């Protein structure tokens, strides 16, 4: 989905603030999102991709106003509610206030059936397609050409895994783009490498 989470290249954000001697967690509730998320993964109730997608599905205002661990918690809580383990009402009663969850998921996608493989050094084209579900192709590379620098081992296709569907194993490719090809005002002498599932790529024309 071309959601609010797809932040690469979005203008208007200010300076990056670095905290000195930062602790791993700032508040003692923060590990709960990870811990309870792993719990459901251990029960095979969902994949890491489903957690990521549940976070992406947060109402955009909530996504952008929430801290990282609040987003993670919200994604995991949404999955427990969608699984039927607990209801939103129960969570609100326990929390003593509103407990916003992710918006509903749209249908997932299958990887391309046709096997098209690419070689290191080959120029490829990122597909110019749009999909409202879980998608690990950032919109800043859509329709762009880059060069394959490395082939990673097969992993479950995110468009399926993010929706709890059986996911085809597909290699992912490290594709290098000249930053200027992505943004005309990008930094000189810089490039961006994006790790893309095979289904996100096409032969260059």
């Amino acid at each position, binding site marked *: 989905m071309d959601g609010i*989470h797809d*932040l690469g*290249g*979005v203008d208007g*954000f200010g*300076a*990056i*603030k*670095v*905290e000195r001697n*930062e602790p*791993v*967690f700032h*508040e003692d*509730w923060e*590990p*709960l*999102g*990870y*811990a*309870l998320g*792993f*719990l459901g993964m251990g029960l095979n109730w969902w994949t890491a991709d489903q957690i*990521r997608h549940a*976070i*992406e599905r947060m*109402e955009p*205002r*909530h996504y952008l106003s929430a801290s*990282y*661990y*609040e987003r993670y*918690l*919200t994604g*995991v*809580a949404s999955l*427990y509610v969608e699984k039927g*383990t*607990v209801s939103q009402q129960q*969570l609100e009663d*326990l*929390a003593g*206030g*509103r407990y*916003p969850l992710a918006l509903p998921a749209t249908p997932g996608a299958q990887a391309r059936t046709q096997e098209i493989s690419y070689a290191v050094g080959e120029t490829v084209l990122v597909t110019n397609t749009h999909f409202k579900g879980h998608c690990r*192709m*950032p919109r800043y590379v859509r329709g762009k050409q880059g060069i394959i620098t490395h082939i*990673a*081992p097969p992993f479950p296709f995110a468009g399926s895994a993010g929706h709890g569907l059986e996911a085809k194993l597909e290699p992912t490719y*490290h594709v290098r783009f000249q*930053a200027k090809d*992505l943004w005309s005002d990008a*930094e000189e*002498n*810089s*490039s*961006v*490498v*994006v*790790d893309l599932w095979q289904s996100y790529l096409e032969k260059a024309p």
Partner: protein
Amino acid sequence: MTDHQSTSNMAPKARRARALETALADKNLIPENYVEKITQIAEHKWDAKNGAMVVAEAWVDSEFRERLRTNATAACAELGFSGPQGEYIVALENTATLHNVIVCTLCSCTAWPVLGLPPDWYKSFEYRARVVRESRTVLREMGLDLPAEIEIRVWDTTAETRYMVLPCRPKGTEGWSKEALADLITQNVLIGVALPEV
């Protein structure tokens, strides 16, 4: 327009977190000490000191360095570093003309076993939005002013590969122990927003 209900009158986030924990505990879904164990692992096992040792080893042992270049997952496992978010690690080797930087624009994926949980700035919208488009400016703002002739290569962690930066060994560290070398490698160095400082 009135403010959207999504962000108004929410229960405080700590109470939302405890509410989910309580609901699952009430159903006996949470094994004893489960949350505490995860917290311990996150605070102590996943640690940038691990990545620092990997870098130090690569600096002193050229055969290990070669193994790190060709199969970083196995090389890290040799030193005992593996686990979730470390299933496929790739080491990004800096050279005299190339500087590597890691980001995850879509969420905040990181090689936990060797980098540790990432710092807040890495997870910030500012870093995620800006570093791909304005890498040199962002690095300069963060205190790393690279010469124009060095290419900056930004690695967006969009699939299952997890990255660590292998920086150039600084001059003046000849004969140093691995421990002393590892002390030069901070989490920021492993992400690529700093260089080891002697």
